[in-house]
């Protein structure tokens, strides 16, 4: 269990809703949900996940901390925004889903083999290096995410797509050796450091 996790359990003992309100992006909206069910019924993921948004929000209010944070549900959200446009209360549901996923990850509670999370990590590591996505390294990284054998299989399968992208100048083989960057790389990294600092301060500051 991470230190942050222990600390948060201590701080918000039995009040998971408060914890979410304080620490999760757009988490203050969770209490506005009136449990109508429109988001769940509109979500294209339908029956394919454990807890639709409406249920997750109720679980948060019911204090099911462990179950919510270890759930893979919020990692399944495809950001289609169906729920947001239909929610009669105007909850930014998609953003809350991502906020919950991010928070679970910070606490080290997200399910270990969750593919969306693995991709998100790869994407993040990739983009913070140069401030630009290195498509070549990212795709290769994703293909080989589940081992070498599967990676080769996927790479072969995706060959045509890769070639197409190359022709359309969306994929440059030279990216393998460094790749393009933003103009002020250290400035960009300073911004990210600052953002982290603000986020941590926010979590610290909130008095239950």
């Amino acid at each position, binding site marked *: 269990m991470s230190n942050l996790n222990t600390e948060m359990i201590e701080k918000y003992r039995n009040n998971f809703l408060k914890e979410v309100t304080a620490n999760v992006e757009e988490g203050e909206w969770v209490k506005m949900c009136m449990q109508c*069910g429109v988001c769940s*019924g509109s979500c294209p993921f339908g029956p394919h996940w454990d807890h639709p948004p*409406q249920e997750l929000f109720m679980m948060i209010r019911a204090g099911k901390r462990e179950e919510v944070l270890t759930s893979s549900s919020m990692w399944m959200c495809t950001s289609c925004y169906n729920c947001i*446009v239909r929610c009669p209360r105007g909850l930014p549901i998609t953003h809350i889903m991502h906020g919950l996923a991010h928070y679970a990850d910070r606490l080290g509670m997200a399910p270990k083999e969750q593919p969306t999370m693995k991709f998100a990590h790869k994407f993040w590591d990739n983009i913070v290096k140069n401030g630009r996505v290195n498509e070549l390294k990212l795709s290769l990284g994703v293909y080989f995410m589940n081992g070498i054998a599967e990676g080769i299989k996927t790479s072969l399968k995706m060959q045509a797509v890769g070639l197409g992208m190359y022709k359309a100048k969306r994929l440059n083989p030279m990216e393998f050796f460094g790749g393009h960057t933003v103009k002020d790389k250290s400035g960009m990294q300073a911004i990210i450091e600052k953002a982290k600092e603000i986020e941590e301060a926010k979590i610290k500051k909130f008095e239950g």
Partner: protein
Amino acid sequence: MSDVIATNQTILVVGGGISGMTAALEAAECGKQVILIEKSPSLGGRVSQLYRYFPKLCHPTCGLEINNRRTKMNKNLRIMTMAEVAAVSGEAGNYSVKVKVSPRYVNENCTACGDCAKVVETEFDDEFNYGLGKRKGAYLQHKMAHPQRYVLDPRVIGTDDATKAKEACKYDAIDLDMQEEEIDLTVGAIIWATGWQPYDAAKIQPYGYDRIANVITSVEFERLCDPHGPTGGKILRPSDGQEAKNVAMIQCAGSRDQNHLKHCSRICCMASLKHANYVNEKYGEEGQSTIYYIDIRAIDRIDDFYRRVQELPNVTFTKSKVASVVENKENGNPVLHGVDTEGYNRYANEHDLVVLAIGMEPSVPADAFPVEVKINEEGFIEADESNGAVFAAGCSADALDVNRAVQNATASALRAIQVINSVAGAEG
């Protein structure tokens, strides 16, 4: 019409629905001079379009009959139909009001014998039945219409139908030369009772009102159940005229929703409970009603009614706001999709007919008021000093059921009377 005399001790009531009628009668019965104007050809408004109404599930024929009698007996009250307010100026105790009167093409000689309607051939969508049926170009708005006088649709003027109607009338009641008139009134106070209209159901895109024939609104369902309605009181679904026995009601259709009306329309839960009751009365055990709801808001004594409906064996309550409705192309049945809140079960339920418990919005849009009044976020008139002696009554003031609308109208009549009394006192 030019003989309408009004002074600054007259009260003008705008709108002849249940609220306007109540306000006008209360004031007139207190001895005040009242002019009641109504846009359509007869009084009664939305209540007259219901099959039955709360609190006692009366047929409107009963409640309106009493009010019609009161209006006929009262010499202080003058009624102008087909009349609308065009402009208002002045201040409390002294308003000038411009009223536009549309031609009816039928005068006081009319005995409502209906001979004109027999010979006229052109038919139009019947507004009284929310377009579910047709009516002739010469018509009586409905059986209880007060005044009992026919109307010629302006669209038949200048056609053969108009001449035929004129020739058929034995009482010389048809006057094809009638023109629009403008009348100036001086009044001391104004009661604004222009009421409500159903929210435009087509705007609730996922429910498919504009795409699926068997998705209708609660006001339309009232017309289907009414023996004087377009189906003679049979619940026939629009797609194929078959009897609908398995009926779904969707609550909060357009209400309590940031994408539509933010407010709770207050009447819709009760309307659906009433509808489940209609289905039960018509079909007994063969009927089935399913009410999809967020929470049932059955206020005060309606709660007893709610309990009675809950006990009916063929009524199911599903706690869920339906996410979408799609049509089963083979049989025209609407299929309801959603997730319920008691167990988070996903459903896809097929019904014969879907009734949207449609929300209530003010019938005059906020930017179209011919008079300066304070309008709230929902479009209703807010009680405010700056409104002078313009008082909202009934659903111009808020989303109200008949019971509360009538109470509200009586209160506004008292407010108007106070203004008139002080005008009279000053002129003493």
